[in-house]
């Protein structure tokens, strides 16, 4: 398995647990939706996977590398994990090119330029390369945030409620776009949502999270 999460526990205090014994596995290129109501622990799960929080117990493995176990904890900047935040968190003082290039510091100038152009082409936004985030619509900001997260070719992509800031009309269009981009790049992705339609349109599999526990899984059959 490409992603393996075993017996994950997390609590902000010693006696209360936000996540209880969460375990699941994913194949490479699979898109999994974590579906749950607010407070169910779905965003916390993403924070644990990304390394922004440390679990109280459990093991996380991605691409045969142990990111977290009883005696291992890989810092977030070394995990090769991409993440799209709920509000996108685009750096407001950088234009689109600089936002996308932020995670490419290991590349040469030319390679960086080529990668940014490839990302802009992927999301079909070449004409907005010099715009600042405040000059973009919500949908455009989301696509830039996606390109920024994909640019360093992460091992896994995490998306936190990626549609919560979009209008209903825009949502349907962007859902399909998002799935097609992720499939084009063969990206393994986990996204959390409270909206069943989001999960249905994008995911290959849905994990239902309730009170910090995965209570049910559903494989989506596509024709």
């Amino acid at each position, binding site marked *: 398995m490409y992603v393996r999460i075993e017996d994950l526990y997390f609590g902000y205090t010693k006696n209360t647990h936000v996540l209880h014994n969460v375990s699941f596995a994913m194949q490479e290129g699979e898109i999994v939706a974590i579906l749950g109501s607010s407070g169910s622990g779905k965003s916390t799960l993403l924070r644990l996977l990304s390394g922004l929080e440390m679990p109280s117990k459990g093991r996380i493995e991605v691409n045969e590398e142990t990111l977290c176990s009883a005696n291992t904890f890989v810092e977030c900047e070394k995990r090769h994990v991409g*993440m799209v935040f709920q509000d996108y*968190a685009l750096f407001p003082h950088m234009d689109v090119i600089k936002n996308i290039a932020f995670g490419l510091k290991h590349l040469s100038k030319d390679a960086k330029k080529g990668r940014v152009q490839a990302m802009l082409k992927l999301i079909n936004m070449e004409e907005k390369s010099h715009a600042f985030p405040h000059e973009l619509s919500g949908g455009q900001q989301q696509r830039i945030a996606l390109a920024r*997260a994909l640019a360093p070719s992460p091992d896994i992509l995490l998306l936190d409620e990626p549609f919560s800031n979009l209008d209903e009309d825009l949502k349907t269009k962007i859902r399909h776009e998002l799935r097609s981009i992720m499939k084009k790049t063969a990206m393994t992705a986990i996204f959390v949502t409270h909206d069943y339609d989001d999960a249905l349109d994008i995911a290959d599999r849905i994990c239902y999270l309730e009170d910090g526990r995965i209570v049910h899984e559903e494989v989506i059959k596509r024709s």
Partner: protein
Amino acid sequence: MLSRIRRNINIFSVVSIVAAALIVIPMLNILIEIFNEPTPAWQHIRQNLLTNYIINTTILIGFVAVFSALIGVFGATMVTRYEFKGRRLLSWFLMLPLAMPSYIAAYAYADMVSYTGSLARMFRWLNIPLVINVMNMPGAIFIFTLTLFPYVYMLTRGALSKQSAAFSENARLLGAGKVRTFIRVVLPLLRPALVAGTLLVVLETLNDYGVVAYFNVRVFSFAIFNAFENLGDTPAAIRLSGVLMVMVFIIIAIERFIRGKRRYSMHVKGRPLPRVALKGWQRFILPSLLWVIMVLAFFLPLAQLFYYATLTFTSVFTLSFVYLTINSLTLAVSATLITVLIALMLANYNRGSQNRFKKGLLKVTNLGYAIPGAVIAIAVMIFFIDIDHVLYPIYQFINPNSPRLVLSSTLVMLTFAFVLRFMAIGYNSIEASYDKIGDTFTEASYVLNTSKVKTLLKVDIPLIKHGLISAAIIVFIDVIKELPLTLILRPTNYNTLATEVFRYAREEMLQESAVPALVLILVSSVLIYVLTHYKKKGVPINVR
């Protein structure tokens, strides 16, 4: 059209427009004077001294700005991002140097490092062959940095405590280490607060006269006073003021140009970064650095002043000292009340408006803080002398033996100048409070047929009480410390704590200056304590 104008006439618009007119007229006087025939004194200044003034002023504000920014951001980062012993105390202690007027710190340090001073004696006792002279440009940079960095600290601390963790977390996930995240993301997002704080530091440095006069550092405020008081050449002083105003506007314009169309904030949900406990050597070294800054900026000069106060208390603390303390307090209270009242009217007039006229009016009324005290003093004096000339027939009608100058020889002129100079300070605090509560409460009151004044008294003021108190405290501290305006515009034989400190220092009676200096510092310190500890109770959230 006429009905629209009539509909817009209310107490807020009338006070705002009159205030703007009263502020802009004295400034125009300065501009007009620049185009008049230059005097011989000006020719001399321009040919022999001006370049030197410009170079010295640039060196002074450049270094003070950089050092204040470094210390301010360091302090703000430490108390908002890290957990260590004494953090809560340092969090408000770092504001205390604001209570120490630069000129008082300058007198204390000059004395401490002089041959007979406490520090010099201590060095000799410890056999340390160190002779320090602070009465020069580096000394002035040292004094201004230590007494003014809290402006940067205060604003960047506020911005850091509100900055969403999502930006830093995102940068880390994109592979940036802690240092790169700080330099590329956290620091640039602090830019508006950092620039605003540093600009305040620069403006306060340009405003100072006490330090540069005592240290004989030939910068603009020194030159303006020299032209005005020693050469008796007001037009030359006005021309120098004009050049200084141009320099201030160039600094602001350069910053705007560099900023371009970038923005430094976006609405992003999420909590700020949690504080991390300092570990290892950092646990001792980093907080120690902050304590060293605090000792140098506040406690060391304060201790020196306390020592001198014990020596001179009986000779200085006389009935006339009580009178000048009352003078200082009454002047500061009246200037504060008028400033806050007009700022409140202005804030009401401008609420939620995108109207260009209103925005222009606001810029004019907030101009005062960008203009050094010496410049404002001269502008206001000329303005009041003109008013006295116009009103002279009325004075004669009331009293045939009336002198020609009435208003310009009273406290009205000085109070007016304070209001003009500190309006921006009061306004910004009140505007921030209005932004927090939004417009809905006020609009709800209007639709219930409540008048504007009654709404102001019954709805707005109780809701923005905290902002009003903050505004009043900051203006009060600024007024009570102010020196250049008071020196030029005070009526004859009218003394305040600030002018008394200056007088003693000029007469080399530094020990005697300790008592008035301490009263100034203690009053300001208590107010800073109130400002930093006053809890906001019952302030509603923005419901816009």
